[in-house]
């Protein structure tokens, strides 16, 4: 997600200047690249050296903002260095060793092309290794910031040109839609029919119609208002500087490596004090009309926190282009730009996770792989917080009670070592800090109430104040208190950790006891009905609060995880610790709020336990999925239980599992899970096996030599399998090494004392999460490209080694030529061999063999906390990202095309959806212990009724899960709707699609991914 070297025609101004000069013409003949490079850098330097406004930009609050950047082509035919130092800019025609960072172009031609590329082309160049970076990535951002000051206007022109070209192409695609009004009506008509239910699950105590069919959005003006403000906001989010400024202020005042007395800071105490500093000083905000106090940022509708030590560090170069970029444009004020550029980012330039990783490991192989995007992405460069904390601890004990528990531990453990003492002290500081923030909010609520004219709102504000005086310091006793306490703790957790998480967990199980207690206090049916309605309203506030923060995402991240929200997950349904049906009133209330809110975040998950959960509940889940088009995602308990108990975890804990982030399992309140730590391209080792260790597109001879196809080294398929396995293990080993290096950096620099309070055993052990304090410790991996690998192996096995239809050499030659030289073979490989998802036994065996091989490797590795690695088969948007860096495959997939999302079978595997469902259900769940993402795009027939569609979805889901399916996500949408949305996005602002694990608004997706979603197989109901 890092690095954005020079892109598009940002130096157009310079090229124009040069084009007219005779010097340039000479250069064109002889040293074109070198001349261009030197000329470009010289132009930048002269501007900065002569313009006082630009010189002022080089001056920060902590001194001059310096950077030295080398640029060269891989063959060294062109090179140069630009040095911004102490207010002046110098050039060198060589690259010294101590340079901060270097941009390397694969060929001299790439250097030229990059200068003239559109943003999309520029990112494609980065993602396909034609441009890469070495060195401090945050400082490359600084260099880009400087360059932008000079040629920003030209850059913007190129962005605008691309936007208008896309619009034009989209309009053309939209013309294929026969009837646009049917498309536009279809979406809204789903919300009109409401199914009723008179069947009552055993855990439902109050709702007469669990589907709550009496309520529509019109009954909740507050949710309606939040919805309208959210979907009509001008920009994706406001970039806020509050967090960045406060954490930087703190360290400037109190030190980083050492405290202001010169003593080495204990990392936990430092982190806790910084959290306290932030929470004491951040602005207490109660959004107008909101039932819940507190915000993630200073913008209550949608803001970016932008942790400068993690994801925030990649955005320096884009501060001035955020506002007008094509994807996810942000609003940012000049004040915020100045604060981030001059005050915040300079401080973190050498203290961010990525740079600490690089400098601590001497730019080792893992970080080199990471920076070249083609095979492993180490997510810890962004976050480690895909964890579900035990929110009940705060609800039950209050922060006061938790402080007492920690104090008692501190006082009673005479043998406590220094680390334990510091860790526990840090926890107490964090909990006290939460109370300070809550008190500030209470005061604000009182102030707001005082000046409020509307008597109803005044009462609400007074009630909010009353609640805030009590919680989260004291135990919660009502639903209102519990939800307020939870969200405050969540806000504070995102002030400590990256905000892609932490999760909210089993909200229905957490809230039901409070709901029962509240309802039992009411006597009349009318009072009870009003309270149910209030609860829906309250959770509406919660949902829109969760949706109000966005991860500060650099533009290249819009390619990698396009349209992804922070993914704060909520899980409902399933069974309780004793294995009994856990569906209750709150389950249905939360499903109703999911239907009404229509949001992609919180990322909603429903567990279905065959045999325990009712069909009626599953039907309601499918109903909400149909109405929203894409959410909730549905999970099968049987398969997940089999996967997790295989780790030796007791069934009682496993029964409590929740989905984290995208889909990954975590045991709430007990599990330090970091479930999306590694994103592995499984096709890379396959390509390396085909090329004797060399990765073709990056031209990098990185892997071990495992045999040459042209040299005739593969006589049997098993020999080729062995080569693939060897390349695989070579990369997987590096993934473990790199992740563990990053883990140690978190231990020293970004521990999480507050999050550790909410995970079992951390207090007793006196060790934070990063130090292995949690009861369960694991690291989660997502492996991308399963169907493409399995199908490729099948084609090789059948056509080369068994049927001998083609020699391996000829197949390899066809692949290398992108099948250009052999269209007949191209057709043959696409049709002759049964694929994963076709119902073919051999293909399933191959799929189990591949998943088994990867899982068996990971399960035997240990992370830096002593835990296991778990293997998942979901892809976020990486099936498109990794597809771009991959050449043609034996399956006939052409170079650059996306892989299938998650472990979804290829569309050509079968025309029968049931074959897909059956095959995925037949995978051994033990190899899928970090879950899967299985997309099913379903298209209702024109004359099908709402009930028939929902019933059919329910039958698919029920049968799939009874057969042992682990997860599925239905996208209920027609290709025509998607095409119309492409052409006319204004009608489809809230149209959601599941990518692979997460949900995105279709109109906000990066265009390649939009096309990928359109191309997916669709199955008519």
């Amino acid at each position, binding site marked *: 997600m890092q690095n954005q070297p020079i892109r598009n025609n940002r130096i157009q101004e310079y090229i124009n200047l040069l084009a007219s000069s005779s010097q340039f013409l000479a250069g064109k003949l002889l040293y074109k690249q070198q001349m261009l490079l030197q000329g470009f850098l010289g132009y930048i330097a002269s501007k900065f050296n002569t313009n006082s406004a630009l010189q002022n930009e080089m001056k920060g609050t902590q001194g001059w903002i310096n950077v030295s950047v080398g640029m060269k082509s891989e063959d060294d035919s062109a090179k140069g260095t630009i040095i911004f130092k102490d207010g002046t800019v110098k050039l060198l025609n060589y690259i010294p060793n101590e340079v901060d960072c270097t941009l390397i172009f694969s060929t001299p031609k790439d250097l030229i092309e990059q200068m003239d590329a559109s943003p999309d082309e520029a990112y494609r160049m980065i993602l396909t290794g034609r441009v890469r970076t070495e060195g401090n990535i945050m400082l490359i951002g600084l260099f880009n910031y400087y360059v932008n000051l000079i040629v920003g206007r030209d850059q913007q022109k190129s962005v605008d040109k691309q936007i208008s070209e896309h619009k034009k192409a989209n309009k053309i695609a939209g013309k294929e839609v026969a009837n646009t009004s049917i498309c536009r009506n279809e979406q809204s008509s789903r919300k009109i029919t409401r199914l009723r239910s008179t069947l009552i699950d055993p855990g439902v105590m109050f709702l007469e119609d669990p589907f709550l069919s009496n309520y529509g959005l019109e009954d909740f003006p507050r949710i309606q208002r939040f919805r309208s403000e959210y979907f009509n906001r001008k920009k994706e989010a406001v970039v806020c500087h509050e967090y960045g400024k406060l954490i930087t202020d703190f360290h400037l005042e109190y030190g980083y490596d050492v405290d202001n007395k010169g003593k080495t800071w204990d990392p936990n105490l430092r982190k806790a004090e910084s959290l306290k500093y932030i929470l004491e000083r951040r602005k207490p905000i109660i959004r107008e009309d909101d039932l819940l106090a507190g915000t993630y940022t200073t913008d209550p509708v949608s803001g970016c926190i932008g942790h400068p030590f993690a994801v925030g560090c990649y955005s320096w170069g884009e501060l001035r282009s955020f506002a007008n970029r094509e994807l996810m444009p942000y609003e940012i004020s000049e004040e915020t730009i100045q604060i981030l550029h001059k005050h915040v980012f300079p401080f973190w330039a050498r203290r961010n996770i990525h740079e600490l990783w690089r400098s601590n490991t001497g730019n080792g192989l893992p970080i080199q792989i990471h920076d070249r995007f083609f095979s492993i992405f180490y997510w810890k460069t962004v976050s480690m917080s895909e964890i579900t904390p035990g929110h009940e601890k705060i609800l039950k004990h209050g922060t006061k009670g938790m402080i007492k528990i920690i104090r008692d531990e501190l006082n009673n453990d005479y043998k406590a070592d220094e680390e334990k003492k510091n860790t526990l002290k840090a926890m107490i500081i964090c909990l006290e800090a939460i109370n300070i923030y809550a008190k500030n909010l209470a005061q604000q609520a009182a102030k707001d109430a005082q000046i409020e004219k509307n008597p109803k709102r005044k009462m609400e504000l007074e009630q909010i104040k009353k609640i805030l005086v009590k919680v989260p310091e004291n135990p919660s006793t009502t639903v209102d208190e519990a939800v307020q306490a939870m969200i405050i703790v969540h806000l504070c957790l995102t002030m400590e950790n990256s905000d892609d998480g932490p999760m909210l967990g089993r909200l229905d199980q957490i809230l039901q006891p409070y709901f029962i207690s509240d309802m039992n206090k009411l006597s009349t049916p009318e009072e009870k009905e009003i309270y149910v309605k209030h609860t829906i309203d309250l959770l509406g506030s919660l949902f829109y609060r969760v949706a109000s923060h966005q991860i500060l995402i650099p533009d290249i991240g819009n390619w990698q995880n396009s349209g992804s929200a922070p993914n704060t997950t909520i899980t409902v349904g399933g069974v309780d610790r004793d294995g009994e049906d856990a569906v209750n009133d709150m389950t249905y209330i939360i499903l109703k709020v999911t239907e009404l809110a229509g949001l992609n975040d919180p990322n909603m998950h429903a567990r279905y336990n065959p045999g325990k959960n009712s069909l009626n509940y599953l039907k309601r889940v499918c109903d909400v999925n149909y109405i929203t088009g894409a959410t909730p995602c549905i999970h099968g308990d049987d398969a997940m239980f089999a996967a997790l108990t295989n780790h030796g975890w007791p069934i009682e804990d496993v029964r409590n599992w929740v989905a984290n982030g995208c889909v990954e399992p975590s045991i709430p309140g007990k599990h330090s899970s970091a479930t999306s730590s590694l994103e592995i391209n499984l096709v890379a080792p396959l390509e390396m096996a085909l090329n004797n260790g060399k990765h073709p597109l990056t031209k990098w001879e990185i892997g071990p030599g495992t045999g040459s196809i042209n040299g005739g080294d593969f006589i049997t398929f098993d020999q080729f399998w062995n080569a693939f396995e060897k390349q695989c293990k070579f990369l997987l080993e590096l993934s473990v090494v790199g992740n563990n290096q990053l883990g140690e950096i978190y231990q020293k620099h970004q521990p999480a004392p507050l999050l550790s309070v909410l995970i079992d055993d951390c207090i007793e052990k006196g060790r934070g999460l990063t130090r292995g304090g949690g009861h369960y410790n694991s690291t989660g991996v997502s492996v991308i490209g399963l169907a493409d690998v399995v199908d490729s192996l099948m084609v090789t096995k059948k056509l080369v080694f068994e049927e001998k239809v083609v020699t391996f050499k000829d197949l390899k030659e066809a692949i290398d030529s992108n099948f250009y030289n052999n269209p*007949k073979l191209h*057709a043959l490989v696409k049709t002759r061999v049964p694929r994963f998802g076709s119902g073919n036994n051999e293909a399933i065996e191959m799929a189990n063999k591949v998943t088994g091989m990867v899982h068996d490797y990971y399960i035997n590795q240990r992370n830096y906390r002593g835990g296991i690695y778990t293997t998942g088969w979901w892809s976020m948007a990486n099936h498109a990202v990794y597809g771009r860096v991959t050449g043609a495959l034996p399956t006939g997939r052409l170079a650059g095309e996306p892989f299938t999302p998650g472990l979804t079978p290829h569309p050509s595997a079968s025309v029968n959806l049931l074959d897909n469902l059956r095959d995925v259900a037949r995978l051994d769940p033990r190899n899928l212990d970090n879950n899967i993402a299985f997309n099913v795009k379903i298209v209702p027939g024109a004359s099908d009724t709402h009930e028939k569609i929902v019933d059919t979805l329910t039958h698919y889901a029920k049968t799939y899960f009874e057969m042992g399916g682990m997860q599925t996500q239905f996208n209920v949408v027609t290709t025509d709707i998607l095409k119309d949305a492409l052409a006319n996005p204004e009608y489809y602002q809230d149209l959601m699609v599941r990518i692979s694990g997460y949900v995105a608004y279709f109109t906000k997706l990066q265009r390649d991914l939009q096309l990928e979603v359109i191309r997916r197989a669709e199955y008519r109901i």
Partner: protein
Amino acid sequence: MRSPLIIDIKGNSLDDGPGIRSVIFFKGCPLSCVWCHNPESRHPLAELSFDLQKCIGCGSCIEKCQVGALSRDNVFFVDRKKCTLCFSCAADCPTGALSRIGQKMTQEEIIEKVLKDKPFFDSSGGGVTFSGGEPTLHMDFLSGLLKTLKEAGIHTLIETCGYFNFDEFKRTILPYTDMIYMDIKLFDPEQHERYCGVDNALILENFIRLHKLSIQGGFEIIPRSPLIPGITDTEENLTAIARFLKSNQVKEIRLLPNNPAWHEKCFSLGISDRFMEDSPLRKWLQPAVMEACQCIFECLNDSYETWN
């Protein structure tokens, strides 16, 4: 036992009976309806199909053909007079553009293919539908399949034109059948003979006899009428059918709107399509026409249930 050729086994069907179903298409039909929307199912023998859309023009089939039946100069590509139906071109074709329609399958093979979806049948109240072509052309074979499915607890449905020997049907098919969809296309015998190739007396008689039997329980029979513009959707025809059903106390009918998709298939089978581009048979039925047709049934008797 004479075994039929199977055109296709289609899984996950939601339109051929209740719930999620598998549909088995038999090849061959005693009728020859001019609008038949499965033209590939009429002939009982195997046929060669050529799908122009799939062809990449590699030309290897032309070399493969021993009798020179394939040529780019031929609009249909396949010279059906020369073709000996050896299917070696289809075996060689890399894209499946050339393919054999009609496969020999044993009862065991068919059963194995449909049984894997039994869990979906069970949870949705679905099952297996026999269609075609005309499945009752092969009563022994069909009977064996039905019996096995019945024993496995699977719901069975037969889509039939009704042109069969009643006694044999009653003896071999009925005991293992849960539901019958029988077409009543045209009421007038002459019209029926003209458009469907056979007289309809046997069909109507079979329908009445089965309907009477069904009242005693054990199976259901539902009449269906295809609405073919200008041929079957006339007021005269539909009123006659409605009267016939009413006089036999039949309370339900399914109306099937014209499906023009089949015209595309004619080319691949080398059949020249007898309907012009602008023929109403090449269009979907307008909803208004559909409603008018429904009205004919519902107006005659308000307890009628028409669905499509």
